[in-house]
């Protein structure tokens, strides 16, 4: 499966070389850079106080709805990508079904985006 004249072979070689150069960029500082550790250097960088409690979790979840939408559309485009190939060969149905798919997706998309945008609910 992996012969020298195939693209996959050279892709693996390319990724390997990139990985090696990344690791080399790590090796040089690890060997040559000074290593004077102190407690202050390793403190987390803070500027101002984020109050503890549930507000912090809500703060992180602000745009969670968009991640859910992204998941759903990621699955849907798997079918939409077939649109480009189907309506030449498959006659009218190859054209109508994906169109119906898009049409069916638009109302939930509109309502969900409206719900996600209402900031006071998040």
């Amino acid at each position, binding site marked *: *499966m992996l012969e020298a004249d195939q693209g996959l072979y050279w892709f693996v070689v390319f990724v390997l070389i990139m990985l090696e150069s990344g690791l080399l960029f790590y090796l040089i500082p690890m060997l040559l850079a000074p290593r004077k550790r102190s407690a202050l250097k390793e403190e987390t960088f803070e500027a101002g106080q984020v109050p503890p409690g*549930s*507000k*912090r*979790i*809500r703060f*992180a*979840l602000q745009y*969670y*709805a968009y*991640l*859910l*939408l*992204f*998941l*759903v559309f*990621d*699955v*849907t485009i*798997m*079918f939409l990508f*077939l*649109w*480009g*190939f*189907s309506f030449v*060969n*498959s006659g009218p*149905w*190859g054209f*109508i*079904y*994906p169109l*119906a*798919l898009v049409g*069916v*997706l638009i109302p*939930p*998309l509109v*309502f*969900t985006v409206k*719900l*996600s945008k*209402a900031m*006071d*609910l*998040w």
Partner: protein
Amino acid sequence: MDYIIPLVLLTYTSIMALLSLESRSLVYGAISLAGFFIGLSLFFFLLNLPYLGVFQLLVYVGAISVLILFAVMVIGEHQKAGEVRRFRAFGLVGGLLLALAMAFAGIILLMSFLDVSFAPLYSVLVYVAPVVVLITFVVLFVGEPKGRSHYRYRAFGVLGAALIFGSFTGVFSYLGGLNAFSGEVPFDVGRLADFVMNNYGFLMVVLGLLLASAAYGAVALAKKEKEEEEEER
């Protein structure tokens, strides 16, 4: 040489699945799960289904693993990242044994596809694999410390998984292996598109409606209600 790659892939996938079950840190479990999905998609590529493999990567690793990681990180937020310890020892040993057993079963599976007549090796492996599974079962069942004896029942899960895997092996060898999927007909997106649209077009539209409505439902469930907002003030 031809069967080394599927075998390595099988071992990698099994180990990733085990790591995702056995890790103490949820984040490492989620990362291992993403690695498992990658291994699964490589299987799809091997089976001459590149479209499915690519979308497995895009959807499972690119979206679902991200959501799982996100949920784990946000909910475990109070726990500092560096405080968790990594893997349960006994589970890992038992799991490695299980990976070995599944690798053996995989060799049997592959040899049945490739019509390789390694008769002596085959007969040895047919006896070795169940023994390895039994040893795994015993290790997992006995090996849990007293305080966590309820984990012993995982051993039965391992036994069940090995039985299911073994029966799949038997069914596939009986049906002549996966030769139908490998390489004779090159993959063509046009044919796939025709097939889906002509036979499953209406189902595809229904599926799209179901997915989008599920998204709306999930968002509607996740948002704050007015009363919660009053509480927060």
